[in-house]
Each structure stands twice: as structure tokens, then as C-alpha cells.
């Protein structure tokens, strides 16, 4: 069942419209931030309002304009897009609270530009989530790259500019150089770019072109951060922490992964890829990134950089899960978008809170910090449990799905990769928490006195940590949505 409705468009536009009052109200900070909240809440409410329809097994469609023959600018909301939209729009509210605390406390400059670009980025993110065809998705993908560039280069110093340059070079280079031609080749073969329930390639034999196209798409959506095209993500960590947390743990990177998922399920089709033996290719390319990124995360001393490498590994997890092309693998992969998002954003919020409260960026400087900032570090602990995949956190649920998916696809090496990487995740997160709480008084670099970051920086990680646990208890919130989309498959 398909329903025609403007709701997805309004959900996207709510943040685009907010860009204007945000830029115009430079003088009055409170009134400016009010608009961010109004937009974020409206957006979230509109997204939520579509949930029952999607759970009911229906999809929402809206054709905006016709662009080229057979390829209109078109929106379609299904379970996959819904999961992603829910995550992005709910976390925008939380991140906005956090941004205000962080940006004001650290007296950042150009806050209007910051909030305006943030709103624009959310518009593009929802656009990607709700795209009905590859071209529409590509359009919003590019808008997202451009709108987040000012956020990465926010500090305007040399490091930020280099980070910004790297960011654009990698993202624009891959999308124009790889994804665009791959998309054109697909269009020339099939005459359409619409995401189909079983892909659109059935009946077209590509021969040797197929692995090339698969790789062009996997690397073309460079936001997914597959190695060796991952260097922009650690580079982008020069951005203020709210940007790293929402955009470079959730919105931007997940847009890359989401695009790859759409291509695997909607363009090629899981059956088609399995039939043509592409599963090992996808899984091993992603698996290489999973292991390498985890190993690299081990020796990062800068906390945000360690988190960035962890993100790279987790993104590859998702691609690997979906790339298995088995039912459980795909469900687990898409669900992991949500599970990982809440866990990782908690970690970034904590990293930012530590920076705001103490000015410390390096893990070696955080020995004993649990005594000074117990709430922050408790949230950090829960977040890292979720990323590792320990109970009682949502990360476990999606990881189990992916593991079962690997078994379903008869890919034992992938099972091993999942297990090894979970172990590595534990290796690079748990020592931080351990050192923060359990250290001798002589080792401790902090006084035994509670002195947390401002409230606006504490509440968000606590909320997201609670959601992580809630997702363990009620995983069906996510799983049902994903399966509603899989019902069509």
C-alpha cells in the first residue's frame, strides 16, 4: 500500500526553513536557539507521526518534480528510511541541548553559522533517508557534504582548514569520481534509478562490470568511511564536539552507510548479489576495515580520534551485515544504524563534556577522571558497552542479528571477524573507563571532588545512555520497523 502525503517533505523542510530565522537572529542568542528547538521538535513530531503508517506495512510517497526521463525528484518513506530518520531527528533535539551548553561554555565564535549549517545538514540527512531513487539520494548526499564543510572548518585555524580540505576532497572526490559514473552506468543499463524491493538489475548480466560497480558504489559514498578512503573522518574531528557527535557519529557517516545499504538492497538486490557471488567481495572489503580500524583505534591517544576510528570500524560492521545479503544480516545491519548511533553519540557527548570541564583531549590525561566526573564517565561506560555489544545495551541485539546473519549466509570467517572485533572494541574502550575509576590516589590526575561539566552537557549523554539501555529491553522499537521494510523483500 502506498500513501501519498506531504508529511516527509514537511519533516525535511522544517529544518531548512529554520535556517532563515537562525541566521537573522544573530543578536539574540536565546531567541535564535529557540528556533533550533522549534524546528527540531516539529521535525521529530512529523517523523513520529509517520511511524504507525510504516509499521502498518505501508509506504509514503511524494513525487516533487520530474528531473530526467524516468527519474523524478521523489520521496519514499519505508522502514529503513524511518529508522534512520527517527535516529537523526531525535538525536538532533538532544544534540541541540548539548550544543548550547558546549558552544556557550567554550565561547565559540560564529555560532549563528554553526546552528544554521546544522539545521541545513539535518534537512539533507532526512532527504537521504526519504529518497525514493538514487538520483534524489545523490542530490541530498551532496547537499550534506557542502553544508557540513563550514562545520568541520569551524575553528578557522590551520588545522581546521586542513581538516576541511581533506573532508571535501575525499567526499566530493569519491562522489563525483566514483558514485556518479556508477549511477550513470546503472541508468544507461536499466533506464531507471528507482529503488526496487528486489533491486532493478534482475535480468541484466554485467559480467566483470558487476564487481567494479559494486566497489565504485561502496567507495563512491565516501561518507561510509571504508578503508583506505577513511582519512577524512579522523581529520574532521577538529570540528566542535557537537558536530563530531551528531554528524560524524550519526548523520553524515550513517548517510554514507545508508546509501550503500540502499544500493545493495534497492539497486542490485540482495538475491542478485548472492546469485552473482558478490557477497564475499563486499564482506571482506568491509571486514578488512572492521579489523584494521579497530587496531588503529587501539593506539590513538586523542579520545575523539579513538572514537572516530571506532566509528569507522562500526560503519564497516553495518556494511558487512547488509553485505551478507541474508535476511538476518540486513535486519541486523540496519538496526545497528540506530543501536550504534545512540551508543556512539553518548561517547562523543562525554568526550565533549570532559573537554568543556577540564580542557583535556587525551586519554592519557584522563586517569582518575571518574572521581571528578562520575556521571559523565558512567554514561561513557554504558555507551562503550553498547559499541562493544555487551548487555544490557542495544548494541548486543543488532550484533546478535548480524552474527546469525553471517551463519545464515554460511560465512564463518565473517563470524570470526565479528567476534575478534568485539574483543578489540573492548580492548580500546574498557581501559579508559577502568583507569577513570580505579586508580591509586598517586596515579590520579584529578582531585577527589565532583566537578561536572555544565548541566546542558550532562543531560544529553545521560538521556542517550538511557535510550541505549531501553533499546536492549525494547529492541522491537527498531527491529519491527526494519522488518516492515523487509516484508516487501
Amino acid at each position, binding site marked *: 500500500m502506498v500513501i501519498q502525503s506531504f508529511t516527509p517533505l514537511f519533516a525535511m523542510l522544517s529544518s531548512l526553513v529554520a535556517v532563515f530565522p537562525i541566521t537573522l537572529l544573530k543578536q539574540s542568542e536565546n531567541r535564535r536557539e529557540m528556533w533550533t528547538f522549534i524546528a527540531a521538535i516539529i521535525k521529530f513530531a512529523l517523523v513520529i507521526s509517520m511511524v504507525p503508517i510504516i509499521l502498518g506495512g505501508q509506504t509514503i510517497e511524494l513525487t516533487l*518534480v520530474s528531473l530526467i526521463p524516468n527519474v523524478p*525528484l521523489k520521496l519514499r518513506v519505508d522502514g529503513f528510511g524511518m529508522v534512520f530518520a527517527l535516529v537523526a531527528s531525535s538525536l538532533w533535539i538532544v544534540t541541540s541541548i548539548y550544543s548550547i551548553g558546549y558552544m556557550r561554555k567554550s565561547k565559540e565564535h560564529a555560532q549563528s553559522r554553526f546552528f544554521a549549517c546544522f539545521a541545513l545538514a539535518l534537512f539533507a540527512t532526512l532527504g537521504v533517508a526519504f529518497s525514493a531513487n538514487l538520483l534524489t539520494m545523490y*542530490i541530498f548526499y551532496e547537499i550534506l557534504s557542502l553544508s557540513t564543510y563550514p562545520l568541520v*572548518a569551524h575553528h578557522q585555524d590551520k588545522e581546521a582548514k586542513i581538516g576541511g580540505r581533506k573532508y571535501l576532497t575525499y567526499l566530493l572526490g569519491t562522489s563525483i569520481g566514483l558514485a*556518479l*559514473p556508477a549511477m550513470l552506468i546503472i541508468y544507461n543499463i536499466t533506464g531507471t534509478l528507482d529503488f526496487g524491493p528486489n533491486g532493478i538489475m534482475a535480468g541484466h548480466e554485467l559480467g566483470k562490470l558487476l564487481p567494479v560497480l559494486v566497489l565504485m558504489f561502496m567507495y563512491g559514498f565516501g561518507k561510509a568511511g571504508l578503508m583506505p578512503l577513511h582519512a577524512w573522518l579522523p581529520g574532521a574531528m577538529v570540528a566542535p564536539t557537537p558536530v563530531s557527535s551528531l554528524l560524524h557519529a550519526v548523520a553524515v557517516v550513517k548517510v554514507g552507510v545508508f546509501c550503500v545499504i540502499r544500493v545493495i538492497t534497492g539497486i542490485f538486490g540482495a538475491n542478485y548479489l548472492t546469485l552473482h557471488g558478490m557477497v564475499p567481495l563486499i564482506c571482506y572489503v568491509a571486514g578488512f576495515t572492521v579489523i584494521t580500524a579497530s587496531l588503529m583505534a587501539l593506539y590513538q591517544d586523542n579520545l575523539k580520534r579513538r572514537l572516530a576510528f571506532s566509528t569507522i570500524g562500526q560503519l564497516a560492521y553495518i556494511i558487512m551485515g547488509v553485505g551478507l545479503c541474508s535476511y538476518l544480516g540486513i535486519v541486523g545491519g540496519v538496526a545497528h544504524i540506530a543501536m550504534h548511533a545512540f551508543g556512539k553519540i553518548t561517547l562523543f557527548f562525554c568526550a565533549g563534556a570532559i573537554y568543556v570541564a577540564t580542557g583535556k583531549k587525551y586519554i592519557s590525561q584522563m586517569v582518575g577522571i571518574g572521581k571528578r566526573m562520575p556521571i559523565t564517565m558512567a554514561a561513557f561506560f554504558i555507551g562503550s558497552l553498547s559499541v562493544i555489544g555487551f548487555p544490557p545495551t542495544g548494541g548486543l541485539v543488532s550484533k546478535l542479528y548480524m552474527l546469525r546473519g553471517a551463519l545464515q549466509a554460511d560465512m564463518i570467517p565473517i563470524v570470526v571477524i565479528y567476534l575478534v572485533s568485539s574483543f578489540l572494541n573492548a580492548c580500546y574502550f574498557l581501559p579508559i573507563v577502568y583507569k577513570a575509576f580505579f586508580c591509586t590516589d598517586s596515579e590520579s590526575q584529578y582531585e577527589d571532588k565532583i566537578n561536572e561539566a555544565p548541566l546542558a552537557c550532562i543531560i544529553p549523554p545521560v538521556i542517550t545512555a538511557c535510550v541505549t539501555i531501553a533499546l536492549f529491553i525494547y529492541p522491537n522499537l527498531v527491529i519491527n520497523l526494519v522488518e516492515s521494510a523487509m516484508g516487501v523483500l
Partner: protein
Amino acid sequence: MNIAAQLPVIVLVLPLLSAFAVTLVSLFNKKLAWPLTVLTMTATFLATTGTLCSVIHNGAIRYRVANWAPPFGIELVIDHLSALVAVVISIVALLVAIFAKETIQKDIPNRVGQFYTLFILCTVGLLGETLTGDAFNLYVLIEITSLTSYALLAFGGSRAYFSTFNYLILGTIGACLYLLGVGYLYIKTGSLNMIDIATLIPALSGSSAIFTAFILILVGLWIKMAFFPFHGWLPNAYTHATSTVSAFAAPLMTKVTVYMSIRLMYFVFGPDYAFSQFTGPVNIVWLAVIAILVGSYYALVQTDIKRMLTYIIIAEVGYMVGGMWLGNAIGLTGTIYHIAADAIMTACLFLALGSIAYKLGSTKISDMAGIFKKMPVTFCAFLVGAAGMIGIPPTAGFFSKWFLISGGIQAGQWAFVVALLVSSLVNAILFFRIIEVGFFGADDEDEHDAVVVQRNEAPLSMLLPTVTAAALVILLGLSTSKVTSLLIENIVGSLF
């Protein structure tokens, strides 16, 4: 007599007459020249739009000038292609006319009347080139356009004289080659009417005289459109001109010449003839590939934005020539679409740059520090134009690349596909270099709080056309499907 039926000729006669009116009026009161020009251009715009609508509804128009029957009389042929190009010309001319007010007053205060007269005449020439259906008449119009554009470009002052003279020499050679080609055609066919010649060519397809004519016309037009390796005159001529003139010449001159070469290649010689002449390794698409790469390379090494843009134009000419020589419908669609898209994008960039030059007195990249804070609206318009050149959707530039790359894939011309992608990436580097400076300041020093810059936006008469052009870049992109289905498919469908 029905006025609507006379629209094709009104498009030409109205601005032609008002050019003289502007001369007369400006003798008495210089201040009246600008409003009169804007009025003329608005009327011309309405007339071309009216013609376009009539073509869409009733099909192509063949208009006999002074009611002399072809092939002896001069005929105006307004089909979907020429109507589209005419509208593009009149839009850009109108935008530049509005834009001209302040810059002309500032740059050449004592030659205001001459400028507007030449400007209108040049527009008439361009519109004539588009609408005429007569090969010799086309030569006359090429000369009208060229002569007026030499004069316009030379307004730039000292260095412009030399570079314009250079252009004059090469432009004259180009026009002469064209005339020679038409001479050969006339000897063999006895006709100058394009449609008439087209019916006679198939019977003469083996003739070496016809082949000579084809080559002469082709090369003549290549020189005029600055196609590699005949591009040498363009960068200097356009860089040294005053900003208003470059904003007029850069979007239109090369694009209209590309249009003329489509007209002659596809509608006079016919695609069958044209493609049978170049088979095997000798391929014009390869020349286009080199043009794109050379243009992109030279654009990379420039430090002046205006000069950089002129090299981008050379690369864009490569796009269009390549597209029309791919030999498939989608490639030609790309070329035709790109005529419109590139004209508007180039206009957008040059208008924005003209406004910046007006306020800043410089077009060097290093002087752009803090320009975003100083002229936010203008710089945003510049960004839209830049996004178009890079090919970021939903700007028009994305869709022309879409069609051109599709055409390249279909024709198996992978070098052309790669060249287009490389040029997109180079454009990305070019413009983000400017954007970085414009947003964040020039040097790599730690300047947390950038220098406090006062907002100093260009006057409304410059802002309005710039923003309109930027809006059109996006609007054209979003109406791609309309433009192709209503206009371009009609043309391309009849050829392939």
C-alpha cells in the same frame, strides 16, 4: 496584420531601432541611455519568450523577411532549438543590461551612450545569428556581433586594446574561413538558404568541394568559439575587458557559436554527412577531451578569478563540442542543454565577480579574504554558480554533465567520460580554494576571530541580476525534464 505572427522579426527590429534611439537620446541626456536599454531588453525578452511559447504550441516558424520567398529571400527559422537559444540570449542580455548601470558609470563614465548602443547592437547580432536561416546572412550577423564585441571588449582600457586586437585578427580569420566555406557551398549548390542546401547536400556527398566547405566552416567556427587549439585569444580578451562586458561576452559569444555549429553541422550538412567524414581514429571527441583537460589545467594555475573563469569557459567549450560529436541523441541533448545551462552559470559567476570587483577593486583569489562577511548575498550567488560548474545537483550544471556523460558511456567514449569527471573535480578544487579564502580568510595563520569586516553589499541594480541568475541556475536544473521534453527532444528526435 497579426502582431503575434510578426514576433520573430520584432525580436530583431525592435532592439536594432532602439540602438539608434539610444545613441540619439544619449547625445542629449546620458542618464536616459540606461533605462531605455533596460526597457528594450525587457521588450526583447518578452518577444523571444512569446516566440518560444508559439513554437511550443504551434511548431517551428519559417518567417520570410519582407515577404521575399526563399531560397532567394532571407528566411528566419525559429524552431525549438533557435527559440531556446534566443530566450537564453535575451535573459542574459537583460540581466547584464540591469547590471551595467553602476559599473559603466564607474568604469567608462564618458562613453556611456556608445556602450549601450554597442551593447544592444551586439545583442541584435547574437539574436540574428540564432534566428537566421540563411548561410550568407549568418556571415553578416557574425561580423555585426564580432565588430561590436571588439569595440565592447576594448572598453577595458590599455591592456584590453592589445588583447582585443589579437582577438580581432583571429576572429577575422575565423569569419573569413566561414565565408570561404559558404562560398564553396554556394558554388556547388547554388543556394544560400540553409534548408535548401540541406536538401541538396546528400546528392553531393562525395564532392571534395563540399568537404572543403565543411572543414572551412567547422574550423572558422572553432576559432570563433575558442575551441582547442584555437583558444589563445579568449583568456586575455575576456580578462582585460570591463566586468560588465565580460559578463555579457563570456556567457554568450562562445555558446551562440556552438549553437551555430550545431545548426550547420546537423541541419545544413546533416548528421549522416558529418559523421561519415570522420571515421576511425580521427575523432573530434578526442580534440574535445584535450580541450577540457587543457582548459582545466590552465584554470588550476591561475591566481586571478576572472582569468580562471576564462579557462573554465575553454573547458566548457570542449564539453559542448565533444557532446555534439558523440553521435548519439543523449550527447547532443547534453550539448544543447549545456548551451543554456553554461550561459546562465557563466553569467551568474561573472555577474557576482563583477559586483565583487566593483566593491573590492580586485579579482585576485588572495584578496577574497572575508568576502562572505562583506558581501554575503553576492558571495552566495557566486557559490550557486560554482556549484553549477562543479556539477552539484540540483543545479543545471549537474544535469548537463549527466547527459554528456551518459552520451559518452553510450558512445563508448570513455576518455570523454573521464575528462568530464576530471574537469568536475578540478572545478571543485578551483572553487573551494576561493570559498575557503572567502569564508575563512587568506592565510593559514591561527586567526580564531577573523578580521572584523563591515558588511558592504553591492547596490541593488547589481544584486538583483546576480541573484536572479543564481536562482535561474537552480530553476533550470529543476525544470530539466520540461526543457528536454518540450524543446530538446523535438530537435534531437528529428535527427537521430
